[in-house]
C-alpha cells in the first residue's frame, strides 16, 4: 500500500553509512561495507559523495584509510531522522 520512491534508497544508504561511522567512532571501508550491506564499488561512490558533501571526513593512518563523522554529518543524521518520522505519519517510507 505504501508507495516507495526512488530517491529514498540513496538517502537510506547515506543514512546507513553515516550511522555506521557514528556508531563506530571511526570506520574502515570494510566495516562500513559489512554493516551497510553494500557492494564495494557502490560503497566507494557513496563515500566519495559523502566526503564531497562534507558529511564524512576521510583520514589516512599507516596504510589504511578510515572515515569519521563531521558535525555536519551528525546534523544530517538528526535532520533526516526527524524528516523520516514526519513523513511516516503520512505513509511515506524511506
Amino acid at each position, binding site marked *: 500500500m505504501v508507495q516507495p*520512491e526512488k530517491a529514498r534508497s540513496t538517502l537510506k544508504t547515506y543514512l546507513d553509512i553515516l550511522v555506521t561511522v557514528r556508531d563506530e567512532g571511526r570506520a574502515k571501508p570494510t566495516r562500513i561495507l559489512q554493516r551497510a550491506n553494500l557492494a564495494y564499488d557502490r560503497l566507494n561512490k557513496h563515500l566519495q559523495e559523502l566526503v564531497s558533501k562534507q558529511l564524512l571526513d576521510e583520514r589516512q593512518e599507516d596504510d589504511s584509510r578510515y572515515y569519521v563523522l563531521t558535525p555536519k554529518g551528525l546534523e544530517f543524521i538528526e*535532520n533526516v*531522522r526527524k524528516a*523520516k518520522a*514526519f513523513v511516516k*505519519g503520512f505513509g*511515506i517510507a524511506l
Partner: protein
Amino acid sequence: MADTLPLVVTFDLLSGIIALLVSYYAFQARRWIESSVLNAMSFGFMLLGAALLVEVVTTLSLGITVAQASRLRTFELLENLAYLILQVVALAVIAVGYGRSTYGKTNLQAAAPSGVVAYAVTAAAKTAKLAGLALELYYLFLGLEFVILLVLIFIIFQGFLVYSKNRDDSSLLVLLGFALIFVSHAVVLNSILAISGGEYLVAATVQFLGFLSLLAFVVRSGRVGST
C-alpha cells in the same frame, strides 16, 4: 453569541498557527526528502493556516462567524467566501498528496451522511427567512462546507489506510487530527443549516483539538529525530 467570539477567535488563531507550523515542518522535511507528498502537505497546510487566519480577521472585523454569514448582504461576505474557498483548495491539495502516498485509489462518494440530508430537508423551511442574494449565498456556503466534508472523508480514508498499514502512533495522530477537523466541519454545516451559528464555539473547539493532535504529531516527529 458575542461573548463566545473571543474564544472562537483564540481557537481559530491557534489552529491557524499550528497549521502553518505543520506546513513549515513539511517544508523543512523537503530539504532532506524529495517527495511530491511533502510538497502537497506543505502547500496544503499553508493554505489551511491562511484560511484560518482569514477567518480570524473576518470574525474580528465583522463580529460574526462563517456559520452566520448568510445574514450579511454586503461585500463583507467575500471575506467569509475567501475562507471557505481557501479551505476547499487547501484540503483538496492535502487529499491529493495523501492519496499519492498510498496505492489505494478511491473515488469520492457523492452520498452524504443520511442524518445531514434529513436535517437539510427539515432546515429548508428555515431558509424561507432568507431571500435573493442572501439565499443564494446561503446555498453557496452550504455547498462549500459540503465539499469540505467530502474531501475530509477522502483524507480520513487515506489516513485510515496508512494507519492500518503502519500501526504507528504518528499515523494515528494524523488520522485523529483530520477526524476531529471533520467533526468540526460537520458541526459548522449543522450550524449553517440551522442558520444559528450557536454551535460555532463547539466547532472551533473540536477543530482546535484536531490541530492539537497534529501538533502532537509534529512534536513527536522532532523527538524521534533527536534520539
